[in-house]
C-alpha cells in the first residue's frame, strides 16, 4: 500500500494522469480520433520514461478522458467523437438543439465519472480473485484462453464478421514474420535483418489506425465544415440528478459486465444500456427527443466499460476491447506481462494501476465540467491543420520506437494498407488483435505440444480447456445477438 502511495505521489505520475486525461478529452472531442488511435499514438512516447507507472498512467488517463471527450461532438454536432459515443447522439444532440448543450455535457461528464468509478471498484474487488485462480492454468489451457481472446474479433469486426475474421487471420499470419519461438528459425524475412525480430505491432497499429484515418479524412474534406451550437448551463439541478439516477445505476452494471466480456466494447455497452433504460423508464416517449435518462444511460455505460475491460486484460492477458489490446501491448513494452503472475510479481504496479484508474475518473469530473466550453471550441479545429499534425505525430511516434526509419516506412505502409482496407470495409482492430495474440497463441501451443510430446489431444484434455472453448462459442453467439440488438436500437433511435 505504501509503495502504491509513494508511486502515485511522484509528481511525474500525477502529472502523467492529468496530461493523459486532457489529451484524451481533446482527442475524444475530435471526430475521427478514437480512443484506440489516441492510445496507440501515445504508446511510443512512453518508452524512454524512467517510470513505467508514469507511462501507463498517461495511457490510462487518455483511455478515460477519451471516453468522456467523445460525447462533446456527439452533443454539439451530432457526430460521435468515438464509436462508443454513437448512442450519445440520440438524446445529446436534440438537447443541444433545445439550447441545453451545456446541460447535456454536464450530465455526460457526471455519469461518465460515476460509471468509471463503479467499474474501477468492481475491477479492484474481482481482479485479484480471478488472478489467483488463473495461476493454476496449464499451457494447453492458456492456448484455449488465447483462442478466447481471438474471439474478441467478433466484437470489433464492424459490419461484417467474415471481414473481421479475415483481418484477424491476416494479423496472426503477419505475426509469424521473424524467428519462430521454439527454434529461432527465420520465417518470411527475405534475408532482411530488420524483419528478424518480426513486424513490430506498434508501427502497424499507428499506421492502420491513425495514418489510414488521416488519408480518409483528407478524402472527405470536400464535404465542408461543421457548425457548433451555443453551450449554456453546464451543471444539472438536484431534481435532474434524481431523475437520471436509476438509468445511471442500470448502465453501471450493464457497462461493467459488457466491458468484461472479451470483444464487446463501449459501443455495444452504450446501445444495450440505452435500450434497457428506455424499457424501464417512466417517460420512454422522450427517448430520442432529448431525454436526460437516455443520455445518462449511454454515457455512463461507455465509461463503465473501462474498468470492466481491464478485468480480463490484467488477470488473463486477454484484451476486453481494442483499446485494452493496445494497453496490453504497452504493458509488454514496459516489461509488464499481463496475466495471473502480474498480481504476485508486480503487486505494487497493479495497485498503482487500480488507484490510477480511480484517480483518473475523479480528475475527469472537474476537468470535464470546467472544460466543457473550451472543448466545444476544439471540435471546430479545421481539418487542414489537424490531420497534417496527426501525420507528424505518427511519424515521430514510429521513429521514436527504435530511432529507425524502417519503423517509419512500416507505419506508412500499414497506413496505406489500412486505408485500402477501410475503403473496402475491412476493420483494422482484428488485424492488431491477431498481431498481438498470434505470438502468444503460438508460444502456448508450442509449449503444450512439447510437454505432451506431440499429442494434439492435450489441447482439449482438461475440463478447463473444454469450458473455455464452450465459453468462446457462447460469447460468439452472444456477440452476434448483441450486434443485432445494437442494430435494432440504432434503427429505433434514428427513426425517433
Amino acid at each position, binding site marked *: 500500500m505504501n509503495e502504491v502511495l509513494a508511486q502515485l505521489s511522484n509528481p511525474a505520475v500525477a502529472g502523467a494522469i492529468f496530461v493523459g486525461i486532457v489529451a484524451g478529452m481533446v482527442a475524444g472531442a475530435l471526430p475521427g480520433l478514437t480512443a484506440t488511435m489516441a492510445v496507440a499514438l501515445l504508446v511510443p*512516447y512512453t518508452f*524512454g*520514461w524512467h517510470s513505467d507507472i508514469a507511462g501507463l498512467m498517461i495511457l490510462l488517463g487518455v483511455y478515460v478522458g477519451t471516453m468522456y471527450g467523445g460525447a462533446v461532438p456527439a452533443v454539439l454536432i451530432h457526430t460521435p467523437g468515438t464509436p462508443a459515443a454513437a448512442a450519445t447522439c440520440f438524446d445529446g444532440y436534440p438537447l443541444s438543439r433545445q439550447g441545453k448543450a451545456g446541460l447535456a455535457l454536464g450530465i455526460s461528464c457526471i455519469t461518465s465519472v460515476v460509471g468509471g468509478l463503479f467499474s474501477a471498484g468492481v475491477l479492484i474487488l474481482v481482479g485479484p480473485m480471478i488472478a489467483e485462480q488463473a495461476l493454476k492454468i496449464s499451457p494447453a489451457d492458456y492456448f484455449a484462453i488465447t483462442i478466447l481472446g481471438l474471439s474478441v474479433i467478433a466484437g470489433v469486426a*464492424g*459490419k*461484417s464478421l*467474415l*471481414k473481421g*475474421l*479475415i483481418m484477424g*487471420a491476416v494479423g*496472426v*499470419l503477419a*505475426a*509469424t514474420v521473424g524467428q*519462430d519461438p*521454439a527454434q529461432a*528459425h527465420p*520465417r*518470411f524475412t527475405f534475408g532482411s535483418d530488420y524483419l528478424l525480430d518480426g513486424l513490430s505491432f506498434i508501427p502497424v497499429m499507428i499506421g492502420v489506425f491513425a*495514418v489510414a484515418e*488521416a*488519408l*480518409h479524412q*483528407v*478524402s*472527405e*474534406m*470536400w464535404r465542408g465544415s461543421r457548425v457548433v451550437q451555443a453551450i449554456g448551463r453546464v451543471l444539472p439541478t438536484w431534481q435532474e440528478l434524481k431523475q437520471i439516477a436509476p438509468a445511471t445505476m442500470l448502465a453501471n452494471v450493464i457497462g461493467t459486465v459488457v466491458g468484461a466480456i472479451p470483444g464487446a466494447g463501449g459501443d455495444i455497452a452504450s446501445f444495450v444500456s440505452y435500450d434497457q433504460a428506455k424499457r424501464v423508464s417512466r417517460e420512454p416517449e422522450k427517448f430520442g427527443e432529448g431525454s436526460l435518462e437516455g443520455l445518462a444511460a449511454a454515457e455512463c455505460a461507455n465509461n463503465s466499460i473501462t474498468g470492466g475491460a481491464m478485468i480480463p486484460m490484467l488477470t488473463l492477458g486477454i484484451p476486453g476491447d481494442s483499446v485494452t489490446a493496445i494497453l496490453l501491448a504497452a504493458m509488454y513494452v514496459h516489461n509488464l506481462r499481463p496475466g495471473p503472475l502480474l498480481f504476485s510479481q508486480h503487486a505494487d504496479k497493479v495497485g498503482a494501476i487500480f488507484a490510477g484508474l480511480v484517480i483518473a475518473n475523479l480528475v475527469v469530473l472537474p476537468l470535464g465540467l470546467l472544460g466543457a466550453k473550451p472543448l466545444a471550441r476544439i471540435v471546430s479545429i*479545421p*481539418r*487542414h*491543420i489537424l*490531420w*497534417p*499534425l496527426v*501525420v*507528424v*505525430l505518427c*511519424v*515521430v511516434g514510429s*521513429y*521514436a520506437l527504435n*530511432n529507425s*526509419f524502417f519503423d*517509419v*516506412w512500416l507505419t*506508412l505502409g500499414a497506413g*496505406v494498407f489500412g486505408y485500402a482496407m477501410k*475503403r*473496402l*470495409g*475491412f*476493420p483494422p482492430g482484428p488485424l492488431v488483435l491477431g498481431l498481438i495474440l498470434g505470438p502468444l*497463441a*503460438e508460444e502456448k*501451443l*508450442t509449449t503444450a*505440444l512439447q510437454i505432451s510430446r*506431440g499429442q494434439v489431444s492435450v489441447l482439449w484434455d482438461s475440463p478447463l480447456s473444454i469450458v473455455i472453448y464452450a465459453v468462446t462459442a457462447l460469447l460468439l453467439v452472444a456477440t452476434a445477438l448483441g450486434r443485432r440488438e445494437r442494430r435494432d436500437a440504432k434503427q429505433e433511435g434514428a427513426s425517433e
Partner: protein
Amino acid sequence: MSPALFPRIAAAAVGAFAFAYVVLTVSSPGYAAAAEAGASGGRITGLMLLFGALIVAYALAMRGVGFALSTFLFLWVSMYALHRERAWLSALIAAAAALAISGIFGALLNVDLPTLTRASSRRVGTTQSSR
C-alpha cells in the same frame, strides 16, 4: 513442432474465411450489400493523392534535412495544399508546431530526432569514405 506449422494454420484460416466470404457474396446479394455497408467510401481525390505524396516526401526529407526543417516544410505545404488560403498563416502555424513538437519530443521526451547537422556530417563522412 515445425516452424512452418503455425504460419500454415494462419494461412489456411485466411484462405478459408476469404473463400467463405466470396461464396456468400456471390450467392447472396443481400449479404454482399450488408458487407459493403461497412466500407467507408470516400473519394480518392487528387488532394488525397497529393497528401499521400507529401507524406512520403516528408519521410524521405527527414533523413536528409533533419526533423525540424522537414516537419515545418511538410506542415506548411500540406496545410496550404489542403486549404489554399493565407499561405503566411499556414507558414506561421507550421513553424510554431514544428518548433513545439521538436522541443517536446526532442528535449522533454528524449527522442533522438534526426537533425540537419547530423545529416550533413553523415553526408561528409560518406563523401570522404567514398574517396
